[in-house]
């Protein structure tokens, strides 16, 4: 089984753990650099008021990507392929999972208030469009049963006429 693990800052540990403990197969670790952040950091040396040096060395983001992939490989503790990409994260993740059996990703978004909007924009997009099975992982701990809201006090009124 080909397993693709999409790593993002802040939540990648949970994805690596899930792939290691729950799945059996050939693992590829994926990290994507967001060009939006690259733009902010990659100011050329001669920019206006730039005072002759770029904001960050051009390979700062690539270095950060390498470091993250290294840390993830070490946490995984078994041989793995690495895939570093650059582009709009949700679209790159979908494109990268074209040739895989299962994609592992972490739930994005605020899950202190669970409900229809608790999935972040990127997670939502990938779940909708990924051309493979998807394993969705909680970045911290899964919620317990108490987070289910109580049922509404009155059952919804029964419709007498059902349009046909």
């Amino acid at each position, binding site marked *: 089984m080909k397993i693709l693990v999409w790593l993002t*800052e802040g939540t990648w540990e949970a994805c690596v753990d899930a792939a290691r403990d729950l799945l059996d197969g050939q693992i590829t670790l994926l990290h994507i650099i967001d060009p*939006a952040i690259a*733009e902010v*950091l990659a100011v050329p040396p001669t920019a206006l*008021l730039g*005072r002759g040096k770029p904001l*960050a060395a051009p390979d*700062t983001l690539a270095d950060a990507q390498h470091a993250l992939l290294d840390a993830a490989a070490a946490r995984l503790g078994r041989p793995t392929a690495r895939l570093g990409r650059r582009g709009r994260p949700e679209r790159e993740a979908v494109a990268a999972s074209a040739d895989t059996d299962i994609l592992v990703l972490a739930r994005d978004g605020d899950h202190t208030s669970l409900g229809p909007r608790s999935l*972040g924009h990127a997670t939502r997009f990938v779940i909708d469009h990924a051309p493979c099975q998807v394993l969705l992982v909680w970045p911290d701990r899964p919620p317990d049963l108490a987070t289910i809201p109580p049922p509404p006090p009155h059952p919804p009124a029964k419709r007498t006429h059902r349009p046909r």
Partner: protein
Amino acid sequence: MVSTAVTVALLLGVLAFAVARPWRLPEAAAAVPAAVLVIASGLVPWPAAVHELMLLGPTVGFLAAILVLAHLADTEGVFRYAGAAAARYSGGSPRRLLAVVFAIAAAVTAVLSLDATIVLLTPIVFATAAGVGARPKPHVYACTHLANSASLLLPVSNLTNLLAVAASGLGFLTFAKLMALPWLAVIAVEYLIFRWFFADDLATPAHPQPAAPVRAPRFALTVLTATLAGFAASEPLGIHPAWIALAGALILGGRRALRRSGTPGGSDRVTNHPTRLREIWSLVVAANPAFCAFVFALGIVVLAVSRTGFGALVDRLTPHHADLPGLLAMAALAAILANLLNNLPATLMLVPPVAHTPGLVLAVLLGVNIGPNLTYVGSLATLLWRQVLHAHDHSPATGEFLRLGALTVPAGLAVAVAALWLGLRVFGVS
């Protein structure tokens, strides 16, 4: 009519050159010849040109001194320390890190000017966010946004403020007193919108870090605090704050030089001499003489535009009373002009017609400082990374930045104008 067209074309040419920077020439390479041209052709008479240069002199000197001061603060480790402090106070939580970054970016922008935040603080914030396992985007965007919108507080925070203070004669303390409330209001609005806009990225779990002790650069922080106090004290004493900034830079740079020659390794002349030359050269680069020349030349070219029919048009468009609708109209006009032209020519053009009314001058600054967050090309701060689009030929993820600007700029302008109006009433200034 012809002179209007010629001068406006010259101004647009100078600005276009500054953005495109063909063959990596400094922006002054087009601006200085353009300034010489308008003087030689009589569009700006000699006495008016000399008067403009005298007016801009202390302002540009102040800018250069602040740039050097920020550079020295960086070499002394002030920004590294700020990053370490941010990591510690965040406790590994992305949301708390955002709050700390907001506080630091607002303070750095206010005291050391917007480009200290963009050039010196932003890379540190990126590294800090990566270090605590947070997604860096909200925190890095916060720096670029606050570099503009948090540059309201002091005359030193933004070159636009310095130009407006020079043209209107507003005092340092009066400026700070009236702008404190709008500054706080804009930062609060930006913070709330950032929390909502980046809710996904900020909701990742906290990664508590072992607290790594970082030694505070006490001397540099003391000098910066004393310089800030000096700015406030210089006004009653009748000293231009540029001298205070220069004194701060000299103290920081002087101690650095002394310490170098005092260390055992420092007596090794063979290695020491080139190092010292390189350090002095880095100070000259930090002061950015080419950019200072650009500001002088831009002042002359804008003066030429203002003296033609275009200036009369701007004069007719500007409101004349610092009441709430007047302030709002002024700030909106300034924001639009800052996005169309750039914030520097917008300031040079809008401040002289309203220089007699402090309220309207400050409303112009609200517009030219907050407005640039709306688009890429708005201000120098955003021009800094505008050029990336030319350098790398990838499709930019500009949509997100524009959406964020479309949210923060109108809201920020509205609360800032209301806060300014309130401040003017409370302090009895019109």
